[in-house]
């Protein structure tokens, strides 16, 4: 029995090791993720982000003992209205002012804001201070409202990338693509059919989930449903195109999995699915702009939470359309019908 187990064990290992693409990605992916994450968040990852409302660009840590608290990223906020908006949208866990009258603002629906407030009050009490709490004007955004676009976007991302990319690789590997190649079907027709098929599925599923959360959780929707639907369609097409580009030549499902993970993980970390990137440096925030999911989430949140209209989110939509064009052109150029 052991001989048989060993024979299968050995054969599978050889198969894996000799598939250089998959082997490489299994090594490269975790290393890249490790270096990437350390670059994004630094050695001491800040768990909380607190805005400091002041006129200058440098924060004087000696101005208040709270500013020396570890695991909190302090960022300068020069505009009060902008600071309030970011607190309301969970981009800042807390906003404090130490110039003149010492005061702070916190979103009552923010779990992280609650703990940041506790830390602030403790530090203030230790220093014998008397910082005062202020109310944010307008209705604060609940965390569920803020995170809903992220969850829907993440679901779309996986569905579009794996649902298209993996399937195309499987079709190529098992010869179905080769059979289609022998018909009058053109590559662009095949690609359009794949995009359309996945688009319909993703649109229906996302709309269904959105409607469910709206009904059961009464999630916030300040903007137009039509505008949000446009964001959904344009975003889904860009993600599907990305999946097709990745799958355009790959013949191994394991390599496809590695490549798809390589793009989905950074998007999950950098596009603002679960948390705001306020704590990250400018370079990281700029890198995040190359991902379609960043633009999808930014525009969806703008529509849902701020009531933005089509003109307000035009830059994000244009970025998504440009990415779609690039992905489709590259995908069409490098597309291969069969493995050899």
């Amino acid at each position, binding site marked *: 029995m052991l001989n048989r187990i060993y024979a299968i064990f050995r054969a599978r290992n050889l198969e894996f090791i000799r598939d250089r693409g998959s082997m490489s990605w299994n090594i490269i992916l975790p290393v890249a993720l490790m270096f990437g994450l350390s670059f994004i968040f630094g050695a001491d990852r800040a768990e909380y982000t607190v805005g400091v409302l002041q006129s200058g660009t440098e924060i004087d840590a000696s101005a208040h003992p709270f500013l020396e608290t570890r695991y909190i990223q302090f960022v300068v906020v020069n505009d009060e209205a902008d600071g309030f908006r970011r607190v309301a949208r969970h981009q800042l866990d807390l906003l404090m002012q130490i110039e003149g009258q010492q005061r702070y603002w916190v979103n009552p629906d923010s779990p992280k804001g609650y703990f940041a407030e506790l830390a602030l009050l403790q530090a203030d009490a230790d220093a014998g201070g008397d910082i005062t709490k202020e109310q944010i004007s307008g209705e604060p955004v609940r965390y569920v409202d803020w995170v809903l676009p992220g969850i829907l976007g993440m679901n779309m991302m996986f569905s579009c990338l794996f649902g298209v990319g993996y399937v195309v690789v499987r079709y190529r590997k098992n010869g179905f693509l*080769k*059979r289609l190649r022998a018909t*009058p079907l053109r590559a662009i027709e095949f690609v359009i059919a794949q995009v359309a098929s996945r688009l319909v599925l993703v649109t229906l599923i996302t709309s269904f989930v959105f409607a469910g959360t709206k009904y059961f959780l009464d999630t916030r929707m300040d903007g137009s449903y039509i505008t949000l639907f446009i964001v959904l369609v344009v975003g889904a097409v860009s993600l599907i195109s990305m999946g097709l580009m990745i799958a355009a030549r790959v013949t191994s499902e394991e390599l496809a999995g590695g490549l798809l993970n390589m793009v989905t993980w950074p998007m999950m970390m950098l596009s603002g699915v679960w948390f705001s990137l306020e704590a990250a440096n400018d370079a990281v925030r700029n890198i995040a702009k190359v991902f379609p999911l960043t633009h999808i989430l930014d525009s969806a949140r703008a529509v849902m939470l701020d009531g933005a209209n089509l003109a307000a989110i035009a830059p994000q939509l244009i970025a998504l359309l440009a990415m779609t064009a690039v992905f489709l052109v590259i995908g069409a150029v490098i597309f291969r019908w069969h493995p050899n």
Partner: protein
Amino acid sequence: MVATSGLERHLSHLNLVSVYALPAAQGNLTLLAANRRIIPMPVALEARKLVKQYPGVLAVDEVSFQVEEGTCFGLLGPNGAGKTTTVEIMEGVTPATSGEVYYYGSLAGQKFRQESGIQFPSTALQDHITVKETLNMFHSLYERKGDLGKIIAECSLGELLDRDNRKLSGGQRQRLLLAVALVNRPRVVFLDEPTTGLDPQARRNFWDLVKRIRADGTTIILTTHYMEEAEILCDYIAIMDSGKIISQGNPEALLHEHYQNVIIELPIDDFSGDLSGLKHRVLETQGVIEIETNDVNASLRDLAAHSTGLNRMKIRQPNLEDLFLDLTGHSLRT
């Protein structure tokens, strides 16, 4: 290339004796029929100096041949001979390093795709899709449409229409793949090892199906490992080895050209003494002695002197398999 036997069969089938004057530029062949009147046969498909070079391997080495309309052309060869690559270049699914494929005198293009049908040796179909849905999907890809009802009936798929592709037997699956190849009422059909893995009954059913397709005037390009299949179905064959065509012609003519003798077979167990004592060319394969002779009486006397009995002896004509082995030196399934 002259496919005399196939032509004669074709002519007798159609009772055709008319004379056509087609331009030579279209590559038409002119043949003499039994009544000695000139009958031109259109060339449906032509390969001109096809070359396929992979890194370190010359898979196809300047292969040229023509396939006449309405005939069944067999491309034979051991594994690795280059026949599948050649056929895939003809089909347009693999680009040639050099050389051209002509379809009715013009470079094969979109018209060829509309009018050709292909059955690959192994084609995966979509999971969770039924036979009917598969046929409808492929049917929709062509502007040129075949009669699906007729195709379903011809391929005996009527009772399988609602069955998931994954639940088809080997023979049913091959019939579906052939039906898929016929959905556009093709003028040319490629059958690449269509009966590999089928049981004898399913194979013979498939042959009947192919004969019916050919009888409708469809041109067939067949690659196969089975010499019996080639003998039964093909009007013309080309034998490939190491990327080249080493012999081509009508099967009967090729056999006549290479063999004037008959073959006597006798189990080796029935021999006594030394085989070298026999006065004939002797070949031993899988426990059987094959003796090639043009004088059966003399050979039988010789054998009687060296064997313990001739009860299990067989006398047969050389077949394509003998020719194949003689030409390639390979076993068919190596």
